[in-house]
């Protein structure tokens, strides 16, 4: 699979990060404090998760005074919802298995 998918999958594989991202999609802009208040993990943990989401391009931060606001960038998911790139990855891995099978088959 292409690398951009790996980064996205890794970022979204964690349920806490997924919950943060979903909340930002649903409720819009949030501060770290607001996100922490509704979560069951500490603020440093939330900040760490946000950093991973940011690296994957899924969230954007904006500094306002002493607060940092985060917002979702759902467009970062485009490579995943685009079925052509999904299917290309699917067929590449199927062809890998096909080649393995052909090696095992007799002429």
């Amino acid at each position, binding site marked *: *699979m292409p690398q951009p*998918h790996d980064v996205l*999958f890794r970022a*979204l*594989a964690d349920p806490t990060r*997924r919950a943060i*991202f*979903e909340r930002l*999609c*649903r409720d819009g802009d949030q501060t770290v404090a607001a996100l922490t208040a509704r979560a069951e993990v500490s603020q440093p943990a939330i900040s760490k998760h946000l950093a991973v989401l940011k690296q994957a391009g899924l969230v954007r931060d904006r500094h306002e005074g002493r607060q940092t606001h985060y917002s979702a960038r*759902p*467009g970062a*998911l*485009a490579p*995943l*919802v685009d*079925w*052509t790139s*999904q*299917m*290309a*990855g*699917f*067929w*590449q*891995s*199927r*062809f890998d*298995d*096909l*080649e*393995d*099978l*052909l090696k095992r*088959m007799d*002429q």
Partner: protein
Amino acid sequence: MNEMRTETRSVVVEREIPHPPEKIWRALTQPHLIAEWLMKNDFEPAVGHRFNLRGDWGGVLDCEVLAIEPNNMLSYTWNFTHEDAAYELKSVVTFTLTPTSTGTLLRMEQVGFRPDQKQAHGGAKAGWQGFLANLEQVLARID
């Protein structure tokens, strides 16, 4: 209902394989071999034969054989029905085998027809949530 805005897109994957077309043809058309590299199935090499491909993730594809030219070309429909139209897929998969000096050039072309692309890409909040709910399935599918 008559708002049938359809968009066609295709995926092409090609690979040089160091085996003769006849051998690859067997892997493409014998159910027990298809199961080893693609999915469990009840394929039969007959035009008009309807069959299912069953993925490990629980998804079932509805297929119908459209064309067969032994050792050369195989085409079938590849349709996925989902209660959410954004995940529906109607497509046709065509395998073409071309002999080369070292084996075969295997080409897979999948042409997809998807109703109202807007639904999938509109970024509607409900859509994203649905997508996230399906992420695990996607992960299982693409490894």
